[in-house]
């Protein structure tokens, strides 16, 4: 680089200062211009702030013109939308609002979705979400006690503790990679019709405790389905009572104890 010369340098200095002044002025004015809210900005946009949520509720998930306004961290949980709408910072909060689920559920829809996950009544349900392929410990994070995530409940495990969940419960769409699976000619159209019972328990008289209209193997934890963390359509009216089988007897039509014969010593 050539050494700094005073005479031609003076021209340089002047040119540089002019350029600098122009750039700085433009930046500063641009900054303040940008701070202004223009008409087009405010017209069609719903800025989601805590005040907006208070007045309009939370029905903005699918509103494309909704923009999340900047709020403090403590207010953030109220204005979240999209896939993270149900995020809670603390795990216990996921369980705390289980009771708030609407009670006017479509029973038939619930039965259908339950049936779709099982090959037959008593089959281990397939898992309707991706699973960790390598181990089963993460399953218990949500399924040890019932956990609510948004409008869905991850029910508590209905059977006694086994360690290897994925031995029986496989994902309903397993491989995360997709490669022209539709091209494969292997016929998986199965004609297997599993037994699916959908009845209610029989009552001896009006007001009697209904019998258990299903098998109880692998369903020793009644509260898994019938408790507060269970399928809302069949929630018990008396969750405070803990000894279910004291009043609710197994139904001979379904119970498997018939062929539990003592075998060979």
């Amino acid at each position, binding site marked *: 680089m050539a050494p700094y010369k005073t005479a031609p340098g003076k021209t340089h200095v002047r040119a540089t200062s002019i350029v600098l002044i122009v750039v700085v002025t433009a930046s500063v004015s641009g900054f303040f211009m940008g701070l202004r809210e223009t008409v087009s900005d405010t017209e069609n946009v719903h800025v989601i702030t805590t005040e907006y949520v208070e007045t309009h509720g939370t029905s903005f998930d699918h509103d494309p013109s909704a923009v999340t306004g900047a709020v403090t961290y403590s207010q953030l949980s109220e204005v979240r939308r999209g896939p993270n709408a149900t995020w809670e910072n603390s795990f216990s909060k996921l369980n705390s609002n289980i009771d708030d689920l609407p009670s006017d559920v479509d029973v038939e829809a619930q039965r259908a979705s339950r049936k779709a996950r099982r090959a037959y*009544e008593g089959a281990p349900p*397939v898992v309707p979400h991706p699973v960790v392929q390598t181990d089963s410990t993460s399953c218990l994070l949500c399924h040890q006690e019932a956990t609510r995530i948004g409008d869905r409940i991850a029910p508590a495990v209905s059977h006694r503790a086994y360690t290897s969940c994925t031995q029986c419960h496989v994902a309903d769409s397993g491989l995360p990679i997709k490669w022209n699976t539709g091209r494969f000619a292997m016929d998986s159209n199965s004609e297997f019709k599993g037994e699916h019972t959908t009845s209610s328990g029989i009552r001896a008289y009006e007001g009697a405790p209904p019998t258990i209209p299903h098998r109880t193997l692998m369903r020793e934890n009644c509260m898994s389905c019938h408790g507060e963390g269970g399928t809302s359509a069949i929630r018990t009216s008396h969750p405070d009572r803990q000894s279910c089988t004291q009043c609710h007897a197994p139904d001979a039509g379904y119970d498997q104890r018939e062929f539990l014969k*003592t075998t060979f010593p």
Partner: protein
Amino acid sequence: MNCQRRDFLKASALAAATAVAHQRAFGASSATDSKQTASGIKWDKAPCRFCGTGCHVQVGVENDKVVAIQGDQQAAVNKGLLCVKGYHVGGILYGKDRLTTPQLRKNGKLEDISWDEAIEVMAKRIYDAPERFAFYGSGQWTVPEGYAAQKMIKGGLSNNHIDPNARLCMASAVTGYLSTHGVDEPAGCYDDLDACDVLIMWGNNPAEMHPVLFSRVVDRRSRGEEVTLIDIGTRRTRTTEYCQEYLQFNPQTDLAIANGIAHQLLVNDTWDKDFVGKFCNFRKDTDTASLFGQASTFEEYKELMSEYTPERVEELSGVPAEKIVYLGELFGRKDIRITSLWCMGVNQHTRGTNMNRLLHGIHMLSGHFGKPGDAPTSLTGQPSACGTAREVGTLAHALPGGRIVKKEDHRRDCEKVWNLPEGTINPKPGKHTVAMWESFCKPTNDGGDIGTIWVQVTNPGHTLPNLKKLFTGKKDLDDKFLIVSEVYPTATTELADLVLPAAMWVEKNGVFGNSERRTQQWFKMVNPPGQARDDCWMTIAVAHKLFEMGYPGMSDKDGKFLFDIKDTAGNSVPVWEWEHYYDVNVDEQLFEEYRQLTFKKHKDVAPYQELVKSRGLRWPVVQNDNGTWSETPFRFMEFSDRYVEKGKGIQFYHSVTKDDRGLIWFAPYEPAAEAPDEQYPTWLCTGRVLEHWHSGTMTRRVPQLRNAMPHAYVEMHPEDAAEKGLQNGDIAVIETRRGKIELPVWLNGRSKPAKGSVFVPFFDEQLLINEITLGEIDPISKEPDYKKCAAVVYAKASQPQSSPAEPNELN
């Protein structure tokens, strides 16, 4: 895995279990099996159709269809628990493309024919050239099916070319047992899993392959017990996540690791002198590998082992020397019980027999044998590889009950029970599986001695290694005839000349024998579809057709038909006519005849009616003074096995050295048949997955299983993938000296292969990895190695979406 997190979750699980316990539905037990319930479902017991664990299920039948399955709570094996395949085993009968009519290939196309025509075609083919006929059977054969085939070919045709697919899975375990205990099959049983303190997995993945047995062990932890699990493997699997130790070794060097442990026992002087002094002799191989080798001494054994120092083992295997020392110390302890589990990693191995011997060796050398929990346990893959292939002896060199064709008194025993003239059975062993198929795929005038193969209950077109050499070559040979008894169209039926629709599982009576010597029985519960018929009936029908045609071998000494089935009045029943097949219980009669042959080697199976009453019985089943029958959980051990003479403690009563002692073998580390080199630098390993049974013909037709695992993939180390420019879902090409195949890549999926190796599951019919596997066999067991060959892996040039480049589809 963070220890603290595990402890927390363990405690939470315990808490949950306690909370659950007080809400448990209590049940007493009463009443009989197969009772009709008010809801219209009839329940009956059966062993599961799938793996060698042998869980019992309750099958719910309504309107001649299986509609539900439950784990059988009364079964000692699984106590009401199943795995995902077991829970969906009812659905395997109902795929839409079930085979229902016999078909003969005319002008390249399969056309429907009648059963009578099919039987005639087969009988004529056999009649014309009985010595060129071969039977390829299965570890999924029921005991009566295997016995009928065995009697028909070895007794009726004086032909020893019968071998099962179990040759591809358990043969090395068999030779391992024969050369150490002197007689096949484990000494221990599943009770060992409840009693062990340490469980070592040698190259197997029981969390996916024997899930009910594995959870039997890991569930002990949720009851507060401490069990140490050690995974010695070539890649991380689901099993590894439950283990405290994972020791990754270079393929084939498991031989060195076992020797390293033996070396430590000797160096530390912690080997069990008392046990070895009383119950063991030493053995080493002869110059050419042989089943029984030659006598050796402790000094020679010690000398040969001296090479396997921890440093040398680390050099060979990659397992750190301090881990070898750790294992040596573990085996040296007397206060713990150690169970070793192994399956295909050890058996499908070019030195599989040696590896089996070494595993038995370190258990016997250290005294970890002969007590519940101290057990070298070979796990069987198929539901009846033990019960049928090994015990009925449906192998080219064997006869029922642990006998072999080479021995004259063994042949006499069978000829006596079969009422055949002396000298009927051929003393020359027939062709084992690989030799059989190799011969079948060669032209007749070029050493192709086998002209006809009848395949029952297995899928060799998918499961044989190096398929181009052992199967697909048949396509061009017009004078070769392939008969296939099957339930669904498979890779095998693609090249079949005659396809016979078969009845499946509970569509027929059956008896299986599982991994712990438990023989289990079931009754037919539903009718097979269309014209599908029992495999056993097919064998008898063909035999009778030959009898009608005057083939001398099919009549016994008194001129009666070889399969003379009688009713209760003593009159012969024409069971070769399908309408009369179920007039009597053919299974029972064949089984009782077979039973007479099981006493010689103390493999006494229970009477059929006892099996009906129970959820299986472990042989030897002996009769008590009061007429009841007792099973034997632990063989060779005085506290459990009544055939052990009083005061002996442990008695290997069929000892090779005829002195009631077991054999501790030395076997060296030898390199693999095809190790990676410059041109093919990657190890290719194949194996299975939880959701699919073997070639997937049954499980891929169950929607829940198919959706959980829709197709095959290749797993590799992420760094290797990055080097090759491969990401999750990209198409990789795997090439070996035998061909190439394209597969999608799955990274950080279910298993994590080591750098420089890849893993491909073999269940996918459209992505037949066996086209490029090696197929080199163990010299003693003749079992091929599916776990190791050399390959090169690279990215496919373009990613196909609707590319015409089809991935190795047949046709």
